[in-house]
């Protein structure tokens, strides 16, 4: 009997968050340290998961199961496989920079700020580690509340509009997913995701369920054309909110596709794969163009997130096209591998970029690109980091951004020359908007007095960006351990995704 690591990962941050809340603004100093130490402890506890993870099996590991609602046969059931484990660890990793970045920067209701992020960390880990659909949904929705408050309380001038839009968009998607889950529960009699995956469904049922899932996950990813909440939410959210939103919450959409859509409605996915691929390619290309013209740094990165997440959905659904064209299941795994690596990589890179913007915003209080210029003259260390993350964002080999995109492009080449060509356009577009951003913000002569008086990174900021830089490079140079962890699960997922579930 092993110790309930996943439960600790979920409830430790939540308990710490409540602790910080109780300490309140009066004992903020203690609360801050509690927040930091508990987030570090969470990461530390997630490391044994990596160390003891059996990379030979696709089964759930570190499984926990306790009665929750016996009448519905819904269990407090946790477990991770190669798909969820990296995301759990990513969540644990990304919360630390958020806490450190806000250390002295957040001035109002700081204790609540830390508490909200800690509680959210626990809930997000819950989303990735729940193996019971009802528990999954419970965490999935509960997480909206802290995010709603984070954007609404600490956000920018249009925060109310942005946060309500964010909440309603995601809520609308989710309730349809809930309806679909309950529908399947009525058929199977329990809420285990595995029994939903095993449930035979007619094509008509699958189409409806696919549509419901699509609403939930496409909004979360977000895919064009339901992406419009994201730029608003990102622009208005405080730095930490943007980081978590981009790094983790968007991944939930991708995770949902992999965990629910593909294995539960494989026939509908096969039928409608072109639809998703088309939307993904639109996201990659059209949103790439949209990103170029943004005048607001956060908005630009937000649009770049949408474009990059297009690769995730493309990689997941191109599997069907590969099987259709080549008739081989084996090669299809590459697309999924790419999708997964892209999620992890984008989590790190977009989080880091938002932190970079946060560093500038804390000093100048503007997110407008035009308010900057020549930052490199006054902030050389910062500029080095930002250039690195920007290059990673464009998919430079040697960074994690390259691995994911390359795998997806390679996989889509197997399906069709045109998919890969269109997807590869992102390499050009990504370079356009990212490098042009870098050029305008960092290079050139010092643009104004604000920039002239900038001070370079302090130790706190250096640690945060340095930590992410190391990870981005590590995955870029040596993605093998990550791919190894995912391999059996991805393989299993591909088998499930290409099988048919039509009742005979």
């Amino acid at each position, binding site marked *: 009997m092993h110790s309930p690591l996943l439960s600790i990962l979920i409830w430790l941050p939540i308990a710490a968050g409540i602790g910080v809340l109780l300490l309140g603004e009066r004992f903020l100093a203690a609360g801050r340290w509690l927040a930091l130490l508990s987030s570090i402890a969470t990461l530390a506890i997630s490391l044994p998961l990596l160390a003891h993870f059996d990379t030979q099996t696709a089964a759930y590991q570190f499984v926990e199961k306790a*009665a*929750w*609602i*016996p*009448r*519905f046969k819904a269990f407090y059931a946790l477990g991770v496989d190669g798909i969820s484990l990296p995301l759990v660890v990513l969540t644990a990793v990304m919360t630390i920079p958020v806490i450190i970045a806000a250390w002295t920067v957040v001035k109002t209701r700081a204790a609540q700020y830390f508490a909200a992020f800690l509680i959210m960390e626990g809930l997000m880990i819950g989303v990735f580690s729940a193996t019971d659909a009802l528990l999954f*949904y*419970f965490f999935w*929705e*509960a997480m*909206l*509340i802290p995010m*709603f*408050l984070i954007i*609404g*309380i600490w956000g920018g001038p249009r*925060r*109310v509009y942005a*946060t*309500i839009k964010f*909440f*309603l968009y995601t*809520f*609308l998607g989710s*309730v*349809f997913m*809930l*309806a679909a889950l*309950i*529908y399947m*529960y*009525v058929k199977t009699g329990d809420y285990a995701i595995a029994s939903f995956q095993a449930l035979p469904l007619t094509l008509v049922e699958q189409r409806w369920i696919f549509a419901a899932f699509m609403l939930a996950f496409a909004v979360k990813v977000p895919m064009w054309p339901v992406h419009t909440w994201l730029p608003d939410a990102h622009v208005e959210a405080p730095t930490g909110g943007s980081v978590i939103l981009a790094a983790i919450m968007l991944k939930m959409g991708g995770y949902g596709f992999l965990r629910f859509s593909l294995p539960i409605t494989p026939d509908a996915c096969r039928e409608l794969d072109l639809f998703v691929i088309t939307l993904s390619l639109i996201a990659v290309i059209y949103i790439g163009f949209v990103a170029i013209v943004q005048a607001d740094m956060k908005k630009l990165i937000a649009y770049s997130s949408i474009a990059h997440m297009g690769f995730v959905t493309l990689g997941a659904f191109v599997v069907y096209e590969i099987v259709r064209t080549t008739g081989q299941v084996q090669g299809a795994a590459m697309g999924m591998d790419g999708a997964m690596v892209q999620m992890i990589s984008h989590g790190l890179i977009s989080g880091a970029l938002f932190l970079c913007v946060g560093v500038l915003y804390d000093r100048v209080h503007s997110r407008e690109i035009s308010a900057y210029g020549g930052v490199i003259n006054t902030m050389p260390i910062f500029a080095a980091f930002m250039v690195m993350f920007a290059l990673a964002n464009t998919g430079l080999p040697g960074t994690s951004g390259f691995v994911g995109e390359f795998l997806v492009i390679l996989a889509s080449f197997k399906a069709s020359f045109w998919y890969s060509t269109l997807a590869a356009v992102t390499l050009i577009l990504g370079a356009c908007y990212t490098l042009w951003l870098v050029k305008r913000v960092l290079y050139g002569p010092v643009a104004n007095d604000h920039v002239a008086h900038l001070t370079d990174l302090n130790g706190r900021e250096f640690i945060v960006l340095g930590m992410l830089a190391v990870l981005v490079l590590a995955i870029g140079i040596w993605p093998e351990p990550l791919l190894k962890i995912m391999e059996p699960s991805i393989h299993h997922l591909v088998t499930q995704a290409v099988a048919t579930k039509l009742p005979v």
Partner: protein
Amino acid sequence: MTLHGMTPAVPEIYLAFAVCVVLLFEVFVGVKRPGATSTLTLVVLAIGAALTVRYANIGHHAVLFDGMYVTDPLAFVLKLAGFLCVAVALLYSRMYLENRDILRGEYYVLALTALLGVFVLVSANSLLTVYIGVELLALSVYAMVAFDRESGIAAESAMKYFVLGAIASGTLLYGMSIIYGLTGTLDLEVIATKLNTPGSLGVILGLAFIVVAVAFKFGAVPFHMWLPDVYEGAPTSVTLFVGTVPKIAYFALTLRLLAHGLAGTSADWTLMLTPLAVLTLIVGNVVAIVQSNLKRMLAYSTIGHVGFIVLGFVAGTASGYTAALYYMLVYVLVALGAFGVILLASRKGFEADKLDHYKGLYQRDPLLALVMMAVMFSFAGVPPFVGFWAKLRIIQALWETSHLGLVVVAVVMSVVGAFYYLRVVKLMYFDAPPENLPATLRPLGPRLVIGVNAAAVLVLGVLPSPLLDLCSRLIQ
């Protein structure tokens, strides 16, 4: 019938007796010491709950008084819930009544007679008992709405309530008379055995009148017009009472009358309830969006929730009734918290009923803001709050009966509903408080109870199993 055979009816007998005691107490002691009656009433309720547990908890189905009266585990639990609900409501109300100089014993007497009406309805097994319960409850509540006799708007809404309520009572009676004419009996259990062919014209006619009356009592569209006016016009303590306690009774009314007594014709009345449920969901949730008065907004929100409860009956199965029961209990629990916050945010000469009065509530009173946030997210059906399970249970019942269209309406309307609940959270947490608002009330007792109330909303949301199980057991 021996005296011993009457023990399951102890709650009603006790309550009728207690009403007289409280009335006399008020005349001799209460006039000299205002507030004493209030304390006595809480004691009365506590003793009543204890007696109910001792005598009415018989654990099986039993019929008393020649088939007029039925008691079963469901009745027992609903009566306990009634005691609890009235006690909490009165506790929240005391300072509010004091501040408006209407802390008088009659208020408590009326609350107890209303509760007696609830009990009679909960245990009704005959058309006559049903009608007595309905009237006893309704008359007490009409008087409570008009209790603040200085207030013109309260008098107006009481009048509106009374006139429309009387019409509804009339239709109920008329529908019952048709059913009686068809079956020749008032006993609901006998009616259930005699009426088992849906589609006959006479039954449909009788049902139509009964359904209209039930819809009126619940506040289902298009029979909802009284509800926003009464909620807004009545003193907030009465709004709290009207919004919670009678819901228990009207659930029981629908269950005993339609779901049990007229079970054989469920094909007819579910068909009648379906458009009502859809309209109720849509009108309630959409109209709530444009309200600027919190009490009025909560009135429309109530209508929206009634839509969900009616959906449970539309399913027409035991699972559906369980869902409706669960939804009703959850609604009562959450609504107690919502109106409790309004009561505690109000002061002498200041009614905190505008949405704008809640701007920056977090800065002014973190506890009330926290309670209100839990309540709002629960109403919206967002986990980890208990309202989520209520919605889930209804949707499940609808899927079991393959009502795809109704599922879609229900989930879309819960998103529409989320919008105005979020707006309240937005006001409390994102906006700065205006300068000139008076401080909130800080009596220890009610604040403690409202804290527990909110904690229950959360705890029952995280661990929903006990209440879900209870509801399933109560409805076989």
